[in-house]
């Protein structure tokens, strides 16, 4: 079950909301340096997995190990310090901040001491953090929008700023929730190439939730399939594709009915 050199291990994690089990006894691992896809039908619990890793919700039982540390016991605020960063399915940028300031927020976990907080980033022209953020924007080809209020930017640009904000935390593990949703095929391809290059260059492990199977096939070396909060398959995209349970979960065939009846 646990592959070689895992960076993240989900160990028998369960989560209930009220009486409803959204994640049930879920175990899987993410290999260091891999690009792992998390797929499954709507409501299978994919985003909940992200929310459990980052601490939006506490888990009921089990462990979540990041490089051997059980981060499920760490307050959500501290988890980014341990190297987990994420984006959000519905973009969640700070609408009253500029693009540059949003990216500066991404740096916070690397510079969160008292003195760090009181650094006048907007006053001193050559401030190191500010320059780093500007460089990141410039590298992404977004230099011209650094002072734009993010609320006024088109959807695609907002998605890229959110990704940059997560990268600014210099994570070891990056969680991307439907990064390609709402992008057209050309944008999706460009995004995939960008993500691949960034993760390779910086040694970032990627865990990605995505509905777009082409995207998953091209990006991910491994896939974990969820249905009703349980893992129903894992392995390479090709192997998962041939899995009978996965076919049922997607299809609602007669066999699936028997399983759930």
């Amino acid at each position, binding site marked *: 079950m646990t592959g070689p050199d895992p960076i993240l291990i989900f160990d028998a994690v369960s989560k209930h909301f009220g009486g409803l089990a959204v994640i049930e006894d879920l175990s899987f691992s993410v290999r260091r340096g891999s690009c792992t896809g998390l797929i499954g039908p709507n409501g299978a619990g994919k985003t909940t997995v992200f929310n459990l890793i980052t601490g939006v919700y506490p888990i009921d039982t089990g462990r979540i190990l990041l490089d051997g540390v059980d981060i499920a016991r760490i307050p959500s605020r501290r988890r980014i310090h341990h190297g987990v960063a994420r984006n959000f399915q519905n973009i969640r940028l700070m609408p009253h901040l500029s693009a540059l300031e949003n990216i500066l927020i991404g740096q916070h976990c690397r510079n969160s001491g008292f003195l760090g907080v009181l650094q*006048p980033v907007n006053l001193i022209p050559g401030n190191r953090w500010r320059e780093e953020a500007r460089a990141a924007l410039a590298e992404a080809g977004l230099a011209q929008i650094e002072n*734009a209020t993010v609320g006024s930017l088109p959807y695609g640009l907002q998605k890229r700023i959110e990704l940059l904000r997560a990268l600014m935390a210099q994570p070891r593990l990056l969680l991307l929730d439907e990064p390609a949703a709402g992008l057209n095929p050309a944008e999706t391809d460009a995004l995939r190439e960008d993500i691949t290059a960034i993760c390779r260059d910086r040694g970032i492990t990627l865990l990605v939730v995505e509905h777009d199977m082409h995207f998953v096939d091209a990006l991910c070396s491994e896939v974990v399939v969820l249905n009703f909060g349980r893992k129903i398959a894992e392995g390479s995209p090709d192997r998962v594709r041939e899995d009978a349970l996965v076919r049922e979960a997607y299809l609602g065939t007669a066999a699936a009915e028997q399983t759930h009846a």
Partner: protein
Amino acid sequence: MSGYLEGVLVLLAINIVYAYAAFLPIAAGQLNLGIAGFAVIGGYFSAFVSNQLAVSPLLAIPLGGAVAGLVGLAVAVPVLRTRGIYLALATFALGEMVRAGILNLEVVGGAAGYPVTAFIRLPTIALFTLGVVGLVWLLFSTRFGIAITAVHDDERVADLMGLNVRAFQVAAFTMGSAIAGIGGGLYAHHFSYIEAQYFSISLSISIVLYVLFGGTQSVLGPLLGATVFTLLPELLRGSAQWRYVIFAAILIVVMVVRPQGLVTGTQIRRLLGLRSEFDRKEQAT
């Protein structure tokens, strides 16, 4: 300078200080309706110190601010457990309690009010105001200002980005309380007299109105709001109640037409020449 003009300017300077006291917590997403309560603490404490210990107002006033800030810090932890409208009501209850408490405090004159011996004039008050505005402006050019806005915009994401949301909220609330205390001290030492009745919920509400009117998203908002709100009634002349009537009507209309206040961060950036193509588009739509 005529006495009238000085009077108006003193009022303006003190109102600006109050406005920043309300602005700090509002910038972090908390509506503090107890500003008058913290002002009354700072006012009475600084008056008491300068009366009893013959300390210069220049020292007594910041001291009053510090005490108001300490009280703010002490209550921030329980009070900030509540949110939104409940927080507004809790701070309102707090302000009324403080006021009622001082009304019963015979050592500072109780309901009869408390005379203050030391006297400060416009230049001193203006210096204090400049100091407060400068400090808040400096604070908002640091990472703190960005973090406060982030906490205001999305607490959940701010938390996940590693920001200590609660600490930032407590800090903003405490600093706001301290600034309110300074405002109260300035008031007490200029008018040579302080009475708790004056520091009512109406005062708190008007202070919050300054900020919402001016705009909560930029450091210039409170300055502008307090200035307009102080000077407009003077310009309107007429009897006091009609001034208030016109004034409330203007406020209602502004909130309908421009609920984000008069100035926003986007506009400030535009003003500073930091415009971008997309902001311009926004302006066009």
